């Protein structure tokens, strides 16, 4: 797919109608193909380096779509590595917790022990194996790389591309964003009865803002601004604009006064000397609010001035998706700034709860079989079509993966 990184189409797409088939959102067979032909061969974001800052710090990710549990650990040399969380002896799961810090990993079945490099270091009654070469039986390593502090893995033992090649132009646009100044302030999770694509569709257009967010973002309804959309090969980008016209509400006014740059206040960033990479607000419009990067297949990265929002969509089955949102704001030791940030966090969370209101009923309607297609606007909802098209192309072009696996 690397050739598609070059061919981007840009700017404001012209009005038009597109039909997106519903069948791929409800077919278990199609879901199995997505698993084998997409998820098991692409780079997937599973965390941030600051979640495991010290040697021995680890996290565990149980990923149904990959049919495995992954152990991600920072070694004594400071290098982060990923392994299948599976004992080389008979396959028992090794680490039961979801995060922690350790010098060794000890399998609870027969006591095989591994170090944080993944090397097998101890086997009880080793002599009974008659000359076991422990070097041959370390944990099974998974390719891992990082980008702007985000940890990506690829369970294909020989990835088709490096992470840098995979991210392509999007990787360069985001470069220089001051992630190192940010810290996690909000994290929300949910288990949603929907296909992962239908779920993601709810977060890739601005068209819904006037209705779903009519209470929380009333300025949009008064003055809808068409979001910019641009595709970059398999990835894409939505640029959101909003004319803030309302008088600040009392609590919002306190948040403003304390200088917290957050969510809908992005436009005030000039005064605050926020470092914004050139890849954001590329058209340099004064009413810019954020750029959202849709990193194929399941990671949406929203970047505003002074705020970062990550959506991770993890398919569980054709009808189920685990979802995590992480909200990052600038580190502070000032209690007043922290109070202002709380306003930003709470309004973000409440707004996202509005977003979640439509997803399960949309998926249930697709299951009913009444509609064969969704009808979308190319100008407003072109990124929905784009994502479904990229999924379909992967599924089509990588038929060979099923055979290779067999």
């Amino acid at each position, binding site marked *: 797919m690397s050739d598609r990184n070059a061919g981007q189409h840009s700017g404001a797409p012209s009005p038009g109608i597109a039909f997106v088939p519903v069948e791929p959102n409800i077919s278990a067979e199609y879901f199995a193909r997505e698993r084998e032909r997409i998820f098991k061969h692409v780079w997937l974001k599973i965390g941030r380096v600051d979640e495991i800052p010290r040697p021995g710090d680890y996290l565990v990710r149980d990923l149904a779509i990959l049919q495995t549990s992954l152990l991600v650990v920072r070694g004594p040399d400071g290098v982060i590595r990923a392994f299948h969380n599976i004992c080389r002896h008979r396959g028992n799961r090794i680490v039961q917790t979801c995060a922690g810090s350790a010098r060794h990993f000890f399998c609870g079945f027969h006591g095989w022990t591994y170090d944080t490099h993944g090397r097998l270091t101890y086997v009880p009654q080793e002599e009974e194996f008659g000359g076991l070469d422990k070097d041959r039986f370390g944990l099974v390593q998974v390719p891992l790389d990082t980008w702007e502090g985000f940890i990506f893995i690829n369970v294909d033992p020989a990835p088709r591309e490096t992470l840098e090649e995979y991210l392509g132009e999007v990787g360069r646009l985001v470069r220089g964003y001051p992630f190192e100044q940010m810290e*996690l*302030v*909000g*994290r*929300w*999770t*949910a*288990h949603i009865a929907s296909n992962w694509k239908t779920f993601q569709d709810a977060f890739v257009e601005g068209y819904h803002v006037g209705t*779903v967010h009519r*209470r*929380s973002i009333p300025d949009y309804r008064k003055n809808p601004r068409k979001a910019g959309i641009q595709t970059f090969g398999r990835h894409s980008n939505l640029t959101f604009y909003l004319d803030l016209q309302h008088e600040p*509400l*009392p*609590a*919002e006014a*306190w*948040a403003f*006064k*304390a200088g917290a740059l957050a969510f809908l206040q992005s436009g005030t960033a000039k005064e605050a000397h926020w470092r914004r990479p050139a890849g954001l607000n590329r058209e340099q419009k004064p009413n810019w609010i954020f750029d959202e990067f849709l990193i194929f297949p399941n990671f949406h990265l929203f970047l505003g001035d002074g705020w970062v929002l990550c959506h991770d969509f993890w398919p569980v089955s054709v009808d189920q998706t685990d979802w995590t949102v992480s909200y990052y704001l600038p580190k*502070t*030791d*000032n*209690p*007043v700034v*922290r*109070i202002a940030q*709380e*306003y930003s*966090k*709470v*309004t973000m*969370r*409440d707004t*996202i*709860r*509005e977003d*979640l*209101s439509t*997803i*399960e009923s949309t998926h249930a309607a697709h299951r009913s079989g009444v509609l064969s297609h969704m009808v979308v606007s190319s100008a407003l909802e072109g990124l929905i079509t784009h994502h479904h098209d990229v999924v379909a192309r992967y599924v089509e072009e990588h038929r060979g993966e099923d055979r290779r696996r067999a």
Partner: protein
Amino acid sequence: MRGATPDQLLPEGFGELEPFVCEWALQSERERNRKRLASSMEEIRRFYETMLRHMEALVTHLSRFKLQDLPQPERRLFWLALSLMEVAPAVETYASPDVPDAIAAHRLIIRSP
């Protein structure tokens, strides 16, 4: 910077907020959200309006401290201010403790630090 003496509930000058400490000086987003959802609009408005009257003084007072060095009375005041931000959308945006036409609150699990 000198704060209140440790046996005070809140720093000097914030006596009017003391009746709210037990119910609203809550440490985590999860607790604050739960309290908002379990309260009537009358309770929320009473807390919101009283807090707003003290925000000027609260901001002036707390800006003398570092987050990690807040004495206990200042810490309670800080938590009250976080609860004000939690209930602000209920009053200013939704006119309802909960978010209308949203996914049920219990479906969203709050795991914020």
